[in-house]
């Protein structure tokens, strides 16, 4: 509960000081930073070369913008190295030549974007790694289910393939004041049942997430944190007002990620089990067959408000094993295979009629090191581990180039990314020297990794542990656990329950640095393994300023 109070406090503080935010309302676009600007003119050293100066940020002028604060936070994190920075995961798809399709950064696959390339490309099958956790679009928060519900449901805002915010069921959106934002609901939209979309449906859908008495205990509520409720402002103007508890710099980014719109009367007249096995949305596809845990079949919705979908049916099935997914693709049983592992890439490429497409994803892979236990309480030791890891080699050999090295928690292209920071270079001598300086020579450490949760997670952990183990003064090994076991340790809210050193991946669909740093590294973050007053201060400052984008 302490975390919750702190979060609230932060929003209240923000409310008091950020009247200026209002003026920025209505600006669209997800351009979190084009990667060239920096507000750190004092930065002359090469990223990562600092060794013992941990007080670096104090020598720099105080940032002035939200992006500046976030960039500064990233620098601090880079220097303090609470993580072993690894890489940005790539989404690698195998696809049939029967279709034309470009993957998206946020790992979502919209069948609407698929076009047939040949005559047999009209009925498309996708094999992903697992099936849905029920069809209620508001009762889940993970990519496999997203991929299923987004075919039939739509939100007010969505993102394009590059991550920019675009209007879908809203035709306009703006901040009315610091605690109110307004959406204008698109006209002439009908649900699959034939009912027309009303502003009432939109308000209900928002309330169903954030107000427990209206709907369900939605796991998306934290994504809409600070949203207190919605009401129809004007039926004629088709406007809906959303009330916030305080200034939320990224409220539109949040609405572009979650909050699918449902048909109020349909929801109210059916029970949860029915809603989880049927769909009633406004999306370009409607559900034609649902076999729980096995497959979901869609067919084109002919009354879609925009252009009709180019393909007539879309089927999603699942196979947990990557080789199985590729087998299905190569055998022509499937048109898109999700998460093709590196070693299967040549098989897909060499096969006639299939090819690989890949994009960088929104997921960063790292090894968290708990700041409160020996030997990880020493920043020098943590840096040493970063120097000990040959990231280039891991990306080249384990990931077979399907990843890009990182040196900060925020990914390139995200709001708050600091372009001046390079990944730590591989320098075992430096690492050994730092270990000596840290006073933890001879330490034994164990890296805990989940099995099969992330692309080649166990191999990466083994490689990291082996490389650290190569240091003359540290011995390291890797231990694998079930993902659920790791999750249960990581999510208790107590840092003491976490393993001292563990591999995790973090997907951030809001394209904003805060959604990575706040939960994972802030002192009061729900998953934090780290605590640093200066970092907390930088984040607080950042959250009191509006995001340049909205």
């Amino acid at each position, binding site marked *: 509960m302490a975390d919750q109070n702190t979060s609230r406090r932060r929003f209240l503080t923000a409310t008091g000081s950020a009247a200026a935010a209002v003026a920025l309302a209505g600006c669209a676009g997800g351009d979190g930073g084009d990667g060239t600007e920096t507000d750190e003119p004092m930065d002359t050293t090469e990223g990562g070369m600092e060794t013992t100066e941990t007080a670096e940020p104090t020598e720099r002028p105080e940032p002035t913008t939200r992006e500046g604060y976030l960039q500064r936070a990233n620098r601090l994190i880079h220097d303090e190295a609470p993580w072993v920075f690894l890489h940005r995961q790539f989404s690698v798809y195998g696809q049939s030549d029967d279709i034309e399709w470009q993957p998206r950064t946020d790992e979502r696959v919209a069948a609407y974007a698929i076009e047939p390339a040949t005559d047999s490309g009209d009925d498309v099958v996708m094999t992903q790694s697992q099936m849905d956790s029920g069809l209620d679009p508001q009762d889940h928060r993970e990519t496999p289910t997203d991929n299923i519900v987004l075919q039939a449901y739509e939100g007010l805002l969505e993102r394009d393939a590059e991550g920019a915010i675009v209007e879908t069921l809203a035709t306009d959106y703006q901040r009315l004041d610091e605690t109110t934002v307004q959406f204008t609901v698109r006209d002439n939209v009908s649900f699959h049942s034939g009912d027309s979309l009303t502003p009432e449906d939109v308000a209900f859908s928002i309330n169903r997430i954030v107000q427990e008495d209206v709907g369900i205990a939605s796991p998306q509520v934290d994504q809409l944190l600070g949203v207190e409720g919605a009401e129809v402002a004007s039926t004629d103007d088709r406007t809906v007002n959303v009330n916030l508890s305080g200034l939320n710099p990224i409220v539109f980014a949040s609405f572009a990620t979650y909050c699918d719109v449902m048909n109020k009367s349909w929801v109210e007249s059916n029970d949860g089990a029915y809603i989880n096995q049927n769909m009633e949305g406004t999306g370009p596809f409607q559900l034609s067959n649902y076999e729980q845990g096995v497959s979901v079949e869609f067919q084109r919705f002919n009354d879609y408000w925009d252009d009709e979908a180019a393909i007539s049916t879309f089927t999603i099935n699942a196979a947990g094993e990557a080789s199985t997914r590729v087998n299905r693709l190569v055998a022509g049983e499937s048109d898109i295979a999700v998460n093709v592992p590196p070693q299967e890439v040549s098989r897909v490429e060499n096969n006639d009629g299939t090819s690989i497409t890949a994009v960088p994803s929104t997921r960063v892979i790292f090894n968290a090191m708990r700041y409160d236990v020996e030997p990880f309480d020493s920043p020098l030791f943590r840096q040493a581990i970063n120097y000990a890891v040959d990231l280039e080699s891991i990306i080249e050999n384990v990931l077979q180039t399907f990843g890009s090295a990182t040196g900060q928690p925020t990914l390139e292209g995200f709001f708050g990314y600091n372009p001046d920071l390079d990944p730590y270079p591989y320098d075992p001598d430096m690492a050994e020297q730092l270990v000596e300086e840290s006073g933890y020579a001879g330490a034994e450490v164990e890296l805990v990794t989940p099995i099969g949760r992330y692309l080649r997670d166990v191999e990466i952990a083994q*490689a990291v542990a082996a490389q650290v183990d190569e240091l003359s003064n540290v011995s390291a090994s890797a231990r694998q656990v079930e993902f659920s076991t790791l999750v249960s340790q990581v999510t208790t809210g107590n840092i003491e329950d976490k393993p001292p050193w563990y591999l995790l991946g973090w997907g951030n669909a809001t394209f904003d640095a805060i959604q990575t740093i706040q939960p994972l590294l802030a002192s009061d973050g729900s998953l934090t393994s780290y605590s640093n007053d200066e970092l907390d201060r930088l984040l607080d400052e950042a959250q009191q300023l509006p995001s340049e984008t909205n």
Partner: protein
Amino acid sequence: MKIGPISISPRTIRNLRKEFRSSGLARIGVVLVVLVLLAAVFAPLIAPHNPRTQTLDQAQLPPLGFTDTEQQTRSEMVNGSIETVTENVTVNATTTYPLGTNSLGQDMLSRAIYGARTSLLVGFFGTVLAALLGVTVGLTAGYYRGRVDDLLMRTADVSLAFPSLVLAIALIGLFSRFQADVAYRITDPLVSTGFAGWFRELVGLPTPMPETVVLPTVVILVVGFVNWVWFARIARGEALSIREEEYVKAARALGGSDARIVFRHVLPNAITPILVLATIQVAAIILLESALSFLGFSGTTLSWGFDIAQGRDYLSSSWWIATVPGLAIVLSVIGINLVGDWLRDALDPGIEGEGGL
């Protein structure tokens, strides 16, 4: 011959010898088991490499005899887009890695040798645990009969109603809470005394070897707990019949305590079928352990099942990664089963088809 409370009659030894002489299969079994045992015990001496050492630039080398030159299309991610390079690649098998390497460039032969340790440790200790539990329950049930028997055997029924693999997976979840607290790394005496290092220098093998052996405590506890029923059934049956023997009746009439009678009279006479069952169970538990590792529910990465799971991802490109550990399992389990058959044929304890995955 006497081992603790167990005495082996000369007739038994004669039967064993006779069966061993007449059965070629028994001999094959003993040879296989001895080989696996030697590999497990002397792994730090004979493994060509440290099984954990990664040589990422030597990854996925084929076993000897499978050198292959082929045109390969290699795809690379360059700045977010795919570039395809077609080149002639010679995948050289090398005597350095006689059975090839896996995706991390670890030596398959060394991993197979070290995997024997995990399998045998789990197989042996798991069986001992299962036997201790099962025999205690079975003897108690069979000796006291009546309500005690009913209660214990209904418990056994419930236990049987759970598929052992499912029960094991569920229990591993339970025990993994304690996993970090249980000391499950044991120092490898061959390495810590420096003998392995000295020996390997001498014969020119690379050093150093892993200094500790991971004892997958949780898996051992779980497989022991899952497989007790088979021992309970056998022990109960033996106890039921032995308690009716005159000498047991006599011991009871003389006022011997129950524990003493069970330990001195019932157990020694029930030991033959228990031993035979234990042999078969070692095989069954090795299979169970490999299944658990395969599904990712094991405590160590040095396990045949784990390697198979990893190799499965490379089936289309590097078949040997899954094949080598699989063959290791098959050969060891065949060996143990053959020894079990030998013991069963020679001792004829009247058990057939008890135990299982």
